[in-house]
C-alpha cells in the first residue's frame, strides 16, 4: 500500500488537479452562498462532465465544490439571515444576530475557521477508518451484504426528516425504479411498460440529476417566477445596507482570544458532526442543530446563544462541516452512500469505472490515496481563498438566482445527454425532475429513494444468492452473527433516534 503513496502524491499535487480543486472551491462557495443553489446541485450538474476528465482531476473538482459549498452556505446565513444550504440553517441563528449587532466579519471568520477545523478532522477520521472497515467488509458474504443493505435502507429511511413511513415508501420506490430493465440473473425484462428503450434500465446520471437538481431548479424557478425569492433577497439587501450605516470595520476583526474562546464549541461540533455524518441519512442539518444544542448546554455563556454568540456560530458550522468526511465512510468501506453527497460521489466513481465498495481502495489505491490528500489540502485552499475573498463572497451572495437558474437547467440537460449520448436519458432526466418536485411538495424525503435506486441491484443479487445458498429458506438470512448484529443495531438506532427526535419536537 505504501508504495502507492508516492504516485498518489504526484497525482494529487499535479498542477492540473490543484487547478481543478481551486476552481471547485470557488464554484462551491459561489453557489453555496446564493440561496436556492447549493454545492450538491453543482456536483449533480457537473457529474456528466467528470466523465471526460482524468479521475484525480474530476474528484478534485467535485471535492472542491463540496468543501466550498459547505462553507458558502454560511455566508448568506450570516450576511442576510437566509441559509444558503439546509446545513447552514443553525449557523443563521447566531450568525445573523452577530451581523445585526455589527460584527459580521467576526462571525464569518469564526464560521470559516470552525468549518475548516471540523471538515479537516472529519477527513482524517475517514482516512483512518475507511481502510480497516473495508478489510472487514472483504470477509462479507451475500448474507452479510444483504443485512448491510437492509441496515442502510432502514436507517436512512428512519433518520431522514424523522418520517419513517414516508422514508420507507421512498426506499421502496427507489428499488422499483432500479428494477426497470433486465433482471440481472435471468435476463428477462421487467417493468419496461412495453418501451424497448427502457430495456437497459434507467441510467444513474439522469435519475440522480433529475431527482436532486432539476426538481430543486423547478421549485426555485417557480419562486423566481412569483418573485418571492427576489423580494426576500431585496428585503435582506435593504436591511443589510441600512445596517451598514454606522458600521466600523476596524472594530470587526476576530482576535485570537475570541477565536480561542470558540474552540470548545468547535470541538463539540466537530465530534458530533463526525459521528452523525457517518450514519446513513442523518445529514448535516441534524448534526449542526445537535452540535448547537450541546455547545449551548456546555457553554459558560449559554445566555448569549441566539443573540449573536460566536460560540453558537462555531458549533453549528463545525457540526455542519464535520459531516463532510465521515459521510463518505460507508461509501468507501461498504459501497453504500449514506447521504445525497455520498450518492453523488458514488455516481462519479461509477462513471469513472470505479465500483464503490470494499475493493475500491485496493483496486484504485493511487487514485483513492490522491483523493485523501485532496480532501485535506482542499480545506487549506478553501481557508486561504475564503480568508482573502470574504468581502467579495458576501457580495456574491447578493446575486439573484433567477439569472443563473436557466443556465444551470441548460447545463443539466446538455450534460446528461453528453454522458450517455442518449435522448432517452434527457426524457428520464425531465421525468425524474418532475417526480422529484411532486415528492418534495408532499414532504417525501428524496435521499432514501436515491439510496434505494443505487443499492437495489446489489441488494437483489445478495438476497437471491443468499436464498439459493440456503435452498430457499428465509431463515438463512439470519444465519450470520454479523447480519443479526446489523439488524439489531438498526432497530436500536431507529428507536433511539425516533425517541430523540420526538423529544426535540
Amino acid at each position, binding site marked *: 500500500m505504501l508504495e502507492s503513496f508516492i504516485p498518489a502524491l504526484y497525482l494529487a499535487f499535479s498542477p492540473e488537479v490543484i487547478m481543478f480543486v481551486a476552481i471547485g472551491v470557488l464554484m462551491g462557495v459561489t453557489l453555496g452562498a446564493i440561496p436556492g443553489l447549493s454545492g450538491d446541485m453543482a456536483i449533480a450538474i457537473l457529474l456528466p462532465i467528470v466523465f471526460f476528465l482524468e479521475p484525480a482531476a474530476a474528484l478534485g473538482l467535485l471535492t472542491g465544490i463540496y468543501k466550498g459549498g459547505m462553507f458558502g452556505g454560511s455566508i448568506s446565513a450570516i450576511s442576510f439571515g437566509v441559509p444558503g444550504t439546509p446545513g447552514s440553517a443553525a449557523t443563521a441563528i447566531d450568525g445573523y444576530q452577530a451581523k445585526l449587532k455589527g460584527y459580521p466579519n467576526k462571525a464569518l471568520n469564526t464560521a470559516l475557521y470552525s468549518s475548516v477545523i471540523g471538515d479537516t478532522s472529519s477527513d482524517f477520521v475517514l482516512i483512518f477508518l475507511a481502510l480497516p472497515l473495508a478489510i472487514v467488509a472483504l470477509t462479507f458474504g451475500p448474507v452479510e451484504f444483504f443485512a448491510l443493505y437492509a441496515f442502510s435502507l432502514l436507517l436512512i429511511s428512519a433518520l431522514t426528516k424523522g418520517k419513517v413511513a414516508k422514508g420507507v415508501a421512498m426506499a421502496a420506490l427507489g428499488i422499483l425504479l432500479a*428494477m426497470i430493465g433486465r433482471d440481472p440473473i*435471468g435476463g428477462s425484462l421487467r417493468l419496461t411498460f412495453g418501451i424497448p428503450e427502457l430495456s437497459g434500465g434507467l441510467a444513474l446520471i439522469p435519475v440522480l440529476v433529475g431527482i436532486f437538481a432539476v426538481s430543486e431548479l423547478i421549485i426555485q424557478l417557480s419562486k423566481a417566477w412569483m418573485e418571492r425569492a427576489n423580494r426576500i433577497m431585496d428585503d435582506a439587501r435593504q436591511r443589510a445596507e441600512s445596517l451598514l450605516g454606522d458600521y466600523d470595520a476596524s472594530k470587526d476583526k476576530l482576535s485570537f482570544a475570541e477565536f480561542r474562546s470558540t474552540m470548545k464549541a468547535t470541538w463539540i461540533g466537530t465530534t458530533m458532526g463526525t459521528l452523525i455524518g457517518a450514519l446513513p441519512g442523518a445529514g448535516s442539518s441534524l448534526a449542526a442543530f445537535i452540535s448547537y444544542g450541546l455547545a449551548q448546554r456546555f457553554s459558560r455563556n449559554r445566555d448569549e446563544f441566539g443573540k449573536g454568540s460566536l460560540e453558537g456560530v462555531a458549533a453549528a458550522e463545525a457540526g455542519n462541516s464535520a459531516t463532510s468526511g465521515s459521510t463518505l465512510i460507508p461509501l468507501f468501506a461498504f459501497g453504500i452512500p449514506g447521504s445525497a453527497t455520498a450518492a453523488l460521489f458514488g455516481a462519479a466513481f461509477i462513471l469513472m469505472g470505479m465500483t464503490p465498495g470494499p475493493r475500491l481502495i485496493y483496486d484504485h489505491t493511487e487514485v483513492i490515496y490522491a483523493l485523501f490528500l485532496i480532501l485535506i489540502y482542499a480545506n487549506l485552499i478553501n481557508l486561504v481563498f475564503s480568508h482573502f475573498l470574504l468581502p467579495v463572497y458576501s457580495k456574491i451572495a447578493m446575486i439573484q438566482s433567477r439569472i443563473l437558474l436557466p443556465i444551470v*437547467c441548460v447545463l443539466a440537460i446538455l450534460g446528461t445527454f453528453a454522458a450517455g449520448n442518449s435522448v432517452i436519458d434527457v426524457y428520464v432526466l425531465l421525468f425524474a425532475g418532475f417526480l422529484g418536485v411532486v415528492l418534495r411538495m408532499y414532504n417525501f424525503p428524496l435521499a432514501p429513494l436515491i439510496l434505494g435506486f443505487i443499492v437495489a441491484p446489489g441488494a437483489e443479487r445478495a438476497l437471491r444468492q443468499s436464498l*439459493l445458498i440456503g435452498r430457499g429458506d428465509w431463515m438463512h438470512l439470519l444465519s450470520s452473527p454479523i447480519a443479526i448484529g446489523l439488524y439489531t443495531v438498526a432497530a436500536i438506532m431507529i428507536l433511539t433516534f425516533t425517541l430523540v427526535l420526538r423529544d426535540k419536537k
Partner: protein
Amino acid sequence: MLKPQFNKLLTRQDFYTGLVAMSVGAVGLLDIVYGNWRPGPGLGPHAFPQLAYVTLICAGAVIMIEALFGKSDEFPENLRAIVSTGIGLVAVGMGMFWLIGKLGLGVSVVITLIGASFLLTRDPLKHWPSTIVVPVVATAVIWLLFVKLINVPLPRGMFF
C-alpha cells in the same frame, strides 16, 4: 367518536399520500400475479419487486394510520404554480433539445436562455445586461465547453 375522526381524516393530506402509496403497491402486486412475468432461477425476477410493492403498501398503511391520529403534513403551498413550472420546464427542455437538432446548439441555447430570462425578470429590457448579455456569454461558454473542450457529440443543426 370515530365518525368525526374519520371526517377530519379526509381533510388531511397524508391520508391521500398514503392511499396513493398503497394503490401503487396493490397495482404492482396485481401485475405480478396476473401480468406476463417469466419464471427465473431461485426466487425469480418478480421476488424483489414484490418485496418493494409489499413494503410500499405497508408504508402507505402506516402513513394513513398516522394521519388518522392527526400526524399529517400540511397541503403543499403554491402547488399549482410549481407543477405548472415543472410542466413548463419539461416542455422547454424537450423543445430546446428538438431545436438543437434543427438550428444547432448555439442558436437554440441562446434563444432558450434569453426567453427564460425575459420570463423571469420584471421589465426585462431595463435589465438588459442580465437578460441579454449574460445569456449570450453563457451560451458562448457552454458552446466552448461542450463542443470545443470536451467534444460532446450533440445533434447537429443548421448553424453552429
